[in-house]
Every structure is written in structure tokens, then in C-alpha cells.
């Protein structure tokens, strides 16, 4: 009796399974991955530098939280981290109107969230309504605004959504990358009650956090680990028709320091390591064969490190800074300082050769926008001295550089003490500047205090900073280079461009933003780079390579120079060794 009941139970289960599979193929509009088809099963462990602050896609703005969320959620259009161009994701296809303002998206049909609930245009409409809600201050909102106006979203039918931009927008489909689609059936109630910003915190039961990504949350142990499991409803298959992702589980251990991460990777506790410093890369290199891992140098990153002088004009209160600014404002002074810097030595000593000398903020890692015509800056103490001389500087008997009024040229270089590489660069710059008679003093400071000085009080002479572009498209950095940008670092809060070259930069940047043709945009952006290489508002130093590592049997491992260097294609990763061995 019992036995037969069990049997019928199993049979029923089998039937359901069959119909599910058949149904899936009949109705679901799946994406076929072009990556090498792999072997399902196995677990992958990686490390995170800190724990996420939230699982809420609407409010999360720190890198770690966003990293987890983008494994669990999916976007309409996705930027392929390897090719750096857009490709369909939840959107099966799209069309752009001739004037570049209307973007119509066809959604994939029959997709399901990780809890089994169906996905359609209503979820898309809901998601954008939430992201564009002024009261919520979602970090996505800024990216979805063009010229201060939000885009308009309309549902045409259950599978078609139309986005209307207020003005032509060159990079329109790229803004949809990493904008996760939310499950309306779970979050609408919270939204209507005005509580959506508190939804999906760290205490939310894992099965209540639902998305369209390759994985779903299984377990979160605060301070220790986050376990993601395979999402059985995921919408990608490989060329053999196997459902992705291959991995059963993806675990993130929370390991605060990079040195500790290296030790865990060495011991095999984690199988992937990301964002290695050149120092640690060199230290790990000799063990590649004996420990069966492989290190990858993915080439120049999108991070640009620079020396910047304080060109703010609200420093009257601080006579000392204000007095020095007459030097800083002279382009010949900046050019002379730039010529005095031995960047090749920085590449060699700080990065062990795994970095590239920079001349503009577009690094050679950015294949589409890098301006090859601009020559990298050359180190020449003679040229530096010539430039100083032409700007009216002179030297006293002990070799110290003096300005026109006979004041010795001395300044401090503010640097965040938590970034070892930048601190080292500061020490090297001090020595380089000593060669031309400048007394520069590096002041290491806790990073938040340093940033406050640069963005808030403007109480500094010079600083070494680094910015990592979020995308290869230059639009992501307009905020730094437009004179009214929120992070126009060297001169914040300009109402009108302070210099003719800043005015020209503004004009060109504005123009490229509404130019749709890539070749024309490219020409405009080449001009932007020419201006900055000539005027040196930021004195570019170097860009480090993206250095990562993984166990050698991890298939489809393709590190990229865009953020989340390693696990961006977690859905395609697989173990070449049989699952039982791991």
C-alpha cells in the first residue's frame, strides 16, 4: 500500500517534470549562449572584501552589494564585459528611432523569476517607476536622466516596452546595463506603502529575494559567507541545449584584507581571486604550477591615477593655499611638473611592469575610445626646468625652485593611506620633484578624510587620486570633465567655465552626448583628450593592469577590464574536472 503510493507519487513528479521541460522548450524564449558548453555541477568559492550592506537593488550603491545583486538579478540590455559592447539580455531585441530618442524593447516571452512567478512588461514598468521615483534617490536614477529630465516608459503590450528619452542620447542602450528588473508581485506592496527602501535588507529570508539572474540567494551568514544557488528558471542555455548556469553553488567568503585573500586562494579555500595588486601577483606567480592555479593579466584597466592641483577659487580663507594657486593655475607649471615625473619608474617599481603610462583619462584598456595620436608623457628634468624658467621661476644657490616673488616652491601632496600604490607613487613624486628643486611633502591620510578635503573643504595643495571608469563609454566620466559636473574635481562648483579650454571641453562633451554616429563622436572625444593632455587639469600617471587568478580547471573563465573583472559570466563558468572530485 505504502509502496504503491510512493510509486505513484514519483510518477506524478516525473510527469510534472516532463511537462515542465516540454513547456519550457515550447514557450520560453531562451537565449543561447555562444560560450563553450560545459559540464553542469560543482561549487565555486570566491572572496569579498566586505559584506554587502543590502540586497535591495533600488538603494544599494556600494560595489559589494551591487556585485551580489547582479548575480541574482538581470537587466534588459547587457554590456558584455569581454567585447565591451551591448547584447540582448531580458530584451530579445530592440529598435532605436532615427532621431535617437525612442527605444522600443521586445521582451523574451515565458520567463520566470527565481520563485517561479512569470515575468512580463508590467515588471519592467514597475521597475523603472521605482528607479525614477525622486523620493527614493536610487543610484540608477542619475543614469536614467538625460539633461536633467527622466526618460518616459510606456507599456505597448505584455511583451513590448517603449522608452522615450527627452533628447537624443548617444549611448542610450548602454544605460540599461546593470539596471535590475524587479519582481512586481513581491515589491509592489512595499512600494505603495512607501517602504521599498527598507525591503530586502540583510535580514530578509533568502527565499523572499527573487530575481531573474543566474543564481538566487540561499544563505547569508553575517560576517562570514553568502551562498548563492543555481536558479532553475534561468533563461540561458548553451549550444547543446543545457540550461545555464552550470555551477550548483556560488559562495562568497568575506575576507577583509587582500593579503588574507591571497592566502585563502593559495590554500585553495577560494578558487578565484580578483583585483590582485602587482606585488601579490608577482609573489603568487612562481606557485602557479605546483598549486594548479593560473594568473591572468587582462591588460590595462580603466582606472586612471593622477596628480591634481587645487584649482578651486573659494580658497581665499586659506591664504597659504591661495598663495600657491598662482603657480598651480599656470599651465606651464603643471606641464613642468608633469615632465619632472618619472612614470616609467612608477610602472617598474610600484607595479612591477604591470601598468601603463597614461596621457589622458582614457586608458589603452578602452579599445573604442583610446586616442593613439596622443603621445605618452616623457620624463625630462631638462624640459621641466625649461618650462619653469619660461614661467618666471628661478633657482637659488642651493638648487631650490623660487617663484617670481622669490618664494620657495613647496607644496603638500594629499594621499589616501589605505591605498598602498598611491602612497608609493607619492613617495616617488617627492623624489622626482626634489630633482627640479621643489619640496613636496606627501601627507597620507585616512581615505574618507582625504576625500572630504578634496570634495568638501578644498583645503589641500595637491593630491594623488585614482578613478575607475564604470564603463568604456566616456559618458560615464562626464561628471568629472564638465565644468558644472558634480565631481569636477580640480575646480568644484564652477558656474561658468573658469578657463577658455574648460569652455571648449564643455562644448565638445555636450556635442558628443547627442551625436549618434560613433565615428563623429570618436572625433569629438579625441579632441577632449587633446585638450586635457595639453592643459593637464589632471596630471595623469599610470593605469594598472587588471590582475586576477583562478584554478586552472575553471572553464570559460574570461577576466575583463570592466568592473567585476572575474565573475561577470558566472552563468557560463564550469569545472572541467568531474563534479565528484571537488
Amino acid at each position, binding site marked *: 500500500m505504502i509502496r504503491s503510493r510512493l510509486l505513484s507519487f514519483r510518477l506524478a513528479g516525473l510527469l510534472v517534470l516532463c511537462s515542465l521541460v516540454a513547456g519550457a522548450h515550447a514557450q520560453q524564449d531562451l537565449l543561447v549562449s555562444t560560450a563553450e558548453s560545459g559540464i553542469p555541477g560543482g561549487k565555486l568559492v570566491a572572496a569579498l572584501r566586505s559584506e554587502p550592506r543590502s540586497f535591495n537593488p533600488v538603494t544599494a550603491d556600494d560595489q559589494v552589494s551591487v556585485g551580489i545583486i547582479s548575480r541574482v538579478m538581470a537587466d534588459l540590455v547587457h554590456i558584455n564585459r569581454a567585447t565591451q559592447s551591448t547584447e540582448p539580455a531580458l530584451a530579445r531585441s530592440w529598435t532605436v528611432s532615427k532621431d535617437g530618442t525612442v527605444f522600443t524593447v521586445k521582451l523574451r516571452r515565458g520567463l520566470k523569476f527565481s520563485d517561479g512567478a512569470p515575468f512580463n512588461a508590467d515588471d519592467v514598468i514597475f521597475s523603472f517607476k521605482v528607479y525614477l521615483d525622486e523620493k527614493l534617490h536610487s543610484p540608477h536614477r542619475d543614469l536614467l536622466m538625460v539633461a536633467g529630465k527622466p526618460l518616459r516608459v510606456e507599456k505597448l503590450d505584455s511583451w513590448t516596452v517603449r522608452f522615450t528619452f527627452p533628447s537624443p542620447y548617444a549611448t542610450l542602450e548602454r544605460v540599461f546595463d546593470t539596471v535590475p528588473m524587479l519582481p512586481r508581485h513581491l515589491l509592489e506592496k512595499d512600494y505603495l506603502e512607501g517602504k521599498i527602501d527598507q525591503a530586502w535588507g540583510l535580514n530578509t529570508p533568502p527565499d523572499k529575494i527573487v530575481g531573474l539572474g543566474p543564481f538566487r540567494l540561499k544563505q547569508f551568514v553575517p560576517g562570514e559567507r553568502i551562498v548563492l544557488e543555481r536558479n532553475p528558471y534561468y533563461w540561458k542555455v548553451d549550444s547543446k541545449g543545457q540550461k545555464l548556469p552550470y555551477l550548483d553553488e556560488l559562495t562568497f567568503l568575506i575576507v577583509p584584507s587582500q593579503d588574507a585573500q*591571497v592566502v585563502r586562494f593559495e590554500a585553495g579555500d577560494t578558487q578565484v581571486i580578483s583585483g590582485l595588486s602587482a*606585488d*601579490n601577483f608577482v609573489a603568487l606567480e612562481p606557485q602557479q604550477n605546483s598549486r594548479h592555479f593560473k594568473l591572468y593579466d587582462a591588460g590595462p584597466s580603466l582606472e586612471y591615477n593622477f596628480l591634481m592641483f587645487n584649482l578651486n577659487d573659494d580658497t581665499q580663507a586659506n591664504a597659504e593655499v591661495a598663495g600657491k594657486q598662482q603657480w598651480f593655475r599656470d599651465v606651464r607649471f603643471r606641464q613642468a611638473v608633469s615632465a619632472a615625473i618619472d612614470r616609467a*619608474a612608477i610602472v617598474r617599481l610600484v607595479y612591477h611592469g604591470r601598468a601603463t603610462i597614461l596621457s589622458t583619462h582614457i586608458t589603452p584598456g578602452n579599445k573604442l575610445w583610446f586616442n593613439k595620436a596622443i603621445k605618452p608623457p616623457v620624463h625630462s628634468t631638462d624640459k621641466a626646468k625649461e618650462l619653469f624658467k619660461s614661467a618666471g621661476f628661478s633657482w637659488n644657490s642651493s638648487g631650490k625652485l623660487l617663484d617670481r616673488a622669490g618664494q620657495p616652491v613647496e607644496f603638500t601632496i594629499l594621499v589616501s593611506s589605505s591605498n598602498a600604490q598611491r602612497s608609493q607613487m607619492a*613617495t616617488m613624486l617627492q*623624489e622626482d620633484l626634489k630633482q627640479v628643486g621643489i619640496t613636496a611633502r606627501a601627507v597620507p591620510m*585616512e581615505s574618507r*578624510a582625504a576625500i572630504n578635503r578634496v570634495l568638501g573643504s578644498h583645503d589641500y595643495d595637491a593630491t594623488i587620486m585614482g578613478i575607475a571608469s564604470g564603463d568604456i563609454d566616456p559618458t560615464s566620466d562626464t561628471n568629472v570633465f564638465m565644468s558644472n559636473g558634480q565631481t569636477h574635481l580640480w575646480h568644484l562648483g564652477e558656474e561658468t567655465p573658469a578657463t577658455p579650454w574648460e569652455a571648449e571641453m564643455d562644448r565638445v562633451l555636450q556635442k558628443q552626448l547627442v551625436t549618434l554616429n560613433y565615428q563623429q563622436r570618436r572625433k569629438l572625444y579625441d579632441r577632449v583628450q587633446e585638450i586635457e593632455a595639453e592643459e593637464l587639469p589632471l596630471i595623469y600617471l599610470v593605469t594598472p593592469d587588471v590582475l586576477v587568478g583562478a584554478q586552472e580547471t575553471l572553464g570559460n573563465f574570461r577576466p575583463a577590464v570592466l568592473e567585476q573583472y572575474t565573475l561577470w559570466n558566472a552563468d557560463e563558468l564550469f569545472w572541467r574536472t568531474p563534479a565528484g572530485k571537488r
Partner: protein
Amino acid sequence: MRQRGKFMFVVSALVAVHLLVLFAGFVAPYDYATQDRDHAYVHPTRVHLMDCAGRFHLRPFVYVTSLQEGALSDYREDCSQPAPIRFFTRGDEYLLAGLIPSQLHLFGVASPARLYLLGTDEFGRDQFSRIVYGGEVSLFAGLLAALLALVIGVLAGSIAGASGGWVDETIMRVSELFMAVPWFYLLLALRAVLPLKMDPVSAFILVVGVIGVLNWGQPARLVRGVVLSGREQNFVQAARGFGAGRLYILKRHLLPMTFSLALTQMAVLVPRFILAEVLLSFLGLGIGEPFPSWGNMINEAQQYHVLVSYWWMILPALVPVPVFLGYHGLADALREKLQSQVRFRGDK
């Protein structure tokens, strides 16, 4: 007699170390800030008596080294270019004892050879020179800060212990406050109000002041305990019975009791304060690059890649050990000396 010998040994060793450090410019063959960028992470230079051909030389010598093509820190000796070590040579200019400009160095080799006794760091700076110069900051800052903390601590502790009542209560609560307040954030605030540009001397005074003032709580509490228990001793009671004043008792009986405690505290605090300077440097309040300090050099060696690739970078962590042992020895010897004196006086 044996004790006396030990005492003299420890004292002379410590005096020698401090003199060495005081005349850092003379002892160190190179400047602390000079970056020899073609010689980054050079392992300690080998000093030879036998040349490549197997011939013996009376005067020690080194070979010119150069980086192997394509390698990061693989330096090879060139047998065709020996350079003898000379004493009293001319080299980088420095200020002798911080006052007299001089170019004379105790020893050195002629360029292009290099004499890096303890190897070089990531910028190609001579570690030996930096350790000697670094001692200037670390030994004196540690010593002065410990003295400052002890002076405040002994004063506050003995006053609290001797007076009792609301004075005791107030001083102890304040000391608890000093021990409990999250200084990290207050130091951040301090950094914010100070100017970015600080010359090394004011930075040094700041380091001594901050470390000393922040750490008087612990010695004060210990001293108070000793004074409290001392107050109840028979001879103190007797002195009081004979009409001795509070100040007299404090000076004559109670303070001497705290000396041995103060000395042990000193030996414990100095090494701790040398390391405390690292935190201040992290916040931008310390001495800072390119000026070396032991704390900063030890901190440098705490990175994984340094530990596995460049063993000589750990030497700055070993150098202070004998110095600290010296301090401990000094404190021990002094305590024994004082105790024997007390005993002697007691026997009489």
C-alpha cells in the same frame, strides 16, 4: 658584584645604541631618502674577503651588482668590478647630530658599487641607513612619550592615591575616560584642524605629545594602587602619627614605593609607543615619508608579498628586539638596585 656588571653592560649598550642613532648621518653610508631606482629590492650586499678567482684579500670588498635582464629583483654580481670598503669616505651630505653639515661617513664604497648591508626597499633606499636614521625618531619619540606618560601617570596616580575622596574619584574617572574614548576618531578630528604642512620637528613633538597624553591612564591606575596600599603600611601610619604632613609622606614614603613600578612600566611602554607611531602615520599625524621610523618600516614588512619575496625587509622588525631587551634589562637592574637599597636601609 654580578649585578653591577650586568647593570653596567646594559647601560653602556643602550648608550652606544643611542649615540649610534644620534650620529646617524655619520654611521649610515647613504641618505635615508635617496631612491636608487635601479636597485629596488636588492638583497643585502655580500661582503667578500675571497674574490671570484679564489684569492684572499685583507680588505673586505663588494662586487658591483646589476639587475638581470627581464627580472624584477634578481641581481647578479659582476666579478670584474670589485670595490673595496673604505672607512671615513665622502658621500651624501647630512647634518651631524642635527647641527653640523658634513659629508664624512664611517664607511662606504665607491660608485657604481653599492654597499647595502641590509638590502634595499621598494624604492631602492638603503635599509641599513634607514634603520639607523629611523632610530632617531623611534627611540627618542618612544622614550620621550613614555616619560611623558609616566610623569603624568605617577603624578596623577600618587595624588589620587594619597588624597582619596573626591580628588581620587575625579582623577580615576578622567583616567578611565582617557582609556575608553575612541581615540581614532578624535585623532581624525585633530588631523582636520592641523595644517597639512608640518615640519619634521613639530611632527615629532606632536607624536610625543599625542602618544604620551593619551596613555597616562594605565600607569596612573597602577601607581594609585601601590600608593593606596602603601598608605596603610605601618611605617607610614607611624609617620603620620608623629605628625608628618601629607606632602612629606608622599615625597618620603609613597613616591619611592612607585619607582620600581614606574621603571617596569617604562620598559613596557617604550616598545609599545614605538609601534603606536605607525597608527599616527596612517592618519597623517606621524613623521611620514620619506622620513623613516621603525614603526613605519615594520609596517611595510607586514604585507604578504614582502614576507614571501624579500626576507631582508623583515630585518627592521628584528633590530628593535635587542634594544627592547636592553630597556627591560635596565628596568630590572634598576629595580633590583633600588630594592636592595631599601632592604639595606631597612636592615639598618
